[in-house]
């Protein structure tokens, strides 16, 4: 994300957040500081409480590999981080971080075998699954996600989205209506957009 990227802030009613669920399952891009541990990313940067991580995020993947130690695994530039709640089935228990059955998926377990390369501004792709999805969606959307202007245009066209939006603010241009945002402000192509969402009752 560059300083010149279009930055949009929305205030929405909670029911509108469901529109983001498919996108959050597929993964959204976040601007973060990379080079730290998974726990540092989740707790210190994104502000997910430690108790929540312990109690609710039972399975975590880094670049498609199951993690057993959130403190050792390092998040590098363009990393894909996926968060899941408790899962059923033998395989659900097998994927559990630090679980008794971790040996069953040793071939896809993440092992951190090199040191850190220092911290710097960067981006990651974050995916939210199952119970974690509705629970963390507000926090992640408040943090802000990056996607293309084209994806934003698709979002605006959805009735469930449009009907839940109460206020739109575009940095440098003040408060706008959704129609104005779509017809005037949003670029036609794949230009990057940063979107952050607050719920009704929260400050924009």
């Amino acid at each position: 994300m560059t300083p010149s990227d279009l930055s949009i802030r929305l205030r929405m009613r909670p029911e509108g957040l469901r529109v983001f669920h498919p996108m959050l399952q597929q993964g959204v891009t976040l601007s973060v500081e990379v080079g730290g541990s998974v726990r540092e990313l989740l707790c210190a940067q994104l502000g997910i409480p430690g108790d929540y991580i312990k109690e609710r995020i039972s399975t975590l993947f880094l670049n498609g590999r199951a993690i057993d130690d959130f403190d050792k695994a390092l998040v590098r530039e363009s990393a894909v981080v996926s968060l899941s709640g408790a899962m059923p089935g033998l395989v659900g228990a097998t994927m559990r971080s630090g679980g008794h059955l971790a040996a069953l998926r040793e071939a896809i377990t993440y092992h951190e075998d090199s040191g850190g390369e220092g911290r710097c501004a960067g981006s990651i792709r974050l995916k939210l699954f199952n119970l974690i999805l509705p629970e963390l969606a507000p926090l992640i959307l408040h943090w802000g996600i990056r996607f293309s202007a084209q994806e934003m245009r698709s979002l605006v066209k959805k009735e469930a989205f449009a009907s839940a939006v109460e206020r739109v603010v575009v940095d440098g241009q003040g408060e706008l209506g959704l129609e104005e945002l779509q017809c005037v402000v949003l670029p036609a192509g794949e230009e990057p957009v940063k979107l952050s969402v607050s719920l009704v009752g929260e400050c924009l």
Partner: protein
Amino acid sequence: MDKILRIDMGAAGGPKFKEEPAGEFAAMGGRATTTTIVAREVPPLCHALGAENKLVIAPGMLSGTTASMSGRLSVGCKSPLTGTIKESNAGGQAAQVLARLGYAAIIIEGLPQTDDLYTLYINKDGVKLSVNNALKLLDNYPLVEKLRSDYGDKVAYITIGSAGERKMASASIACTDPELRPTRHCGRGGTGAVLGSKRIKAIILDDAGCKHRQPVNPEAFRDANRRFVEGLRKHPVTGEGLPAYGTNVLTNVLNEAGGYPTNNFATGQFAGSTKISGEAQAELEIKRGGSATHGCHRGCVIQCSGIYNDKDGNYLTKQPEYETVWSHGGHCGIDDLDTIAMLDYLDDNIGVDTIEMGVTVGVAMEAGLIPFGDREGAIRLVRDEVGKGTPLGRILGNGAELTGKAYGVERVPVVKGQALPAYDPRAVQGIGVTYATSTQGADHTAGYAVATNIMKVGGDVDPLKPAGQVELSRNLQIATTAIDATGMCLFIAFPILDQPETFQALLDLLGSFYGITMTGDDVVGLGKKVLTLERKFNKEAGFGPQHDRLPRFFKNQPLAPHNVVFQVTDEDLDQVFNWD
């Protein structure tokens, strides 16, 4: 459960039945009962569809009581699909009703001398076996509708569709759910073909006038059940995840792990996974006026199922489970929930195992019959070929292995003739150990996440050492076999894995019901005993270590994105059952 009903379909002068004392089986149930009887009475070298094979139907140890989650029905026989001993179980209402009627088992043996089709009706006053040729080749949904006009709505139905009558090796036995829909299937291993060979189309169980089975110690039983239910409700899997999303909640995670078999095990990730995920499925079900939370039998507190309506809001099928969504979805390159739901309905209606059928369609796609991703083509193969019993349909209906042979396909994902479920063993290698060595053929439920850490089955295992995979698989298979004997839903595995007090509550349920004290060691002993019987049967049926193997391609075709192959050695696989 003090009696056994034995039906000789081949008796001189026509089928005859008699009742016997249950004896040792009065305090046994589920897989322990079916395996013990099959191992004792069925010649291992017999033809699975011949007169010497027997079909054994048994409720669980706590079925028919007020214990929650106690409604699994086990069916056992020699499998026409695998040639091994087989136990397949299902939810629905049948186990509870059969147990309340007092039966520890129904044993069906012999072959009738005519082509007549029979119904078996059981109520508190007795048993009635009737010829009803009007039911010939009816599939499960219209069959149950027709039976309801005769027997009403206050019974449980066990039925086979046309696939069972045609003795297809993927044929299932259906049990009706609380709404009397034939949606709960003993799916694996072709048990429906064995019932079809006996020419029994439907079993109607009527428990009018019967009461719940009474525990020896009612107060302790009530207390144990309360603690057991509390444990289920407070655990995030059984109290939240399964009720909200069902088993299909696994799709996103398996795909993320690169262990989601796609396009007939060609790769480990499916681009369309989020379109068919449990999250997407639940949202669609609710939007269409269905439900994402529904129990398959009364007394279920987990409610992992649901109701899937079509685009017009009309019932189409029950919520397809993860295995079904995978087999007809990612395995076949299909990313459309409506197509998958239609295939789920067709499988239930025709009466075939959704895993076997989906994997078979994927193998047919590999063979070039239709391309991967062909939604209409997949429906056509199941509905118009398998459902109508065409020559092609009979090949497909006999499973993935036969279809692979018929079309010269190398990559055929089966063990002992049974299709692999929805986890690639190259990514999750420990599950591959269970697939390879299970007495049942490839089966994801053969070694479940059942409290091995609490029970210390086989001693402590270091879970972070690869060598632990064999030990874990062994322990899981022992523990799972024991749970299968109780007749409890396997999903209780999660709270009893994590919560020792819930495991204790289960032991107390069993103990207070039968007036005994049960320990973890007793459970382990039961599991080992049943597995030993099954291994002995299989050995005498011609199975040896060479059959405890995954297909070769898992060892020489790396799986993307992690580019891994199955690495557990044959020597290690041969150590799984080291107490034989």
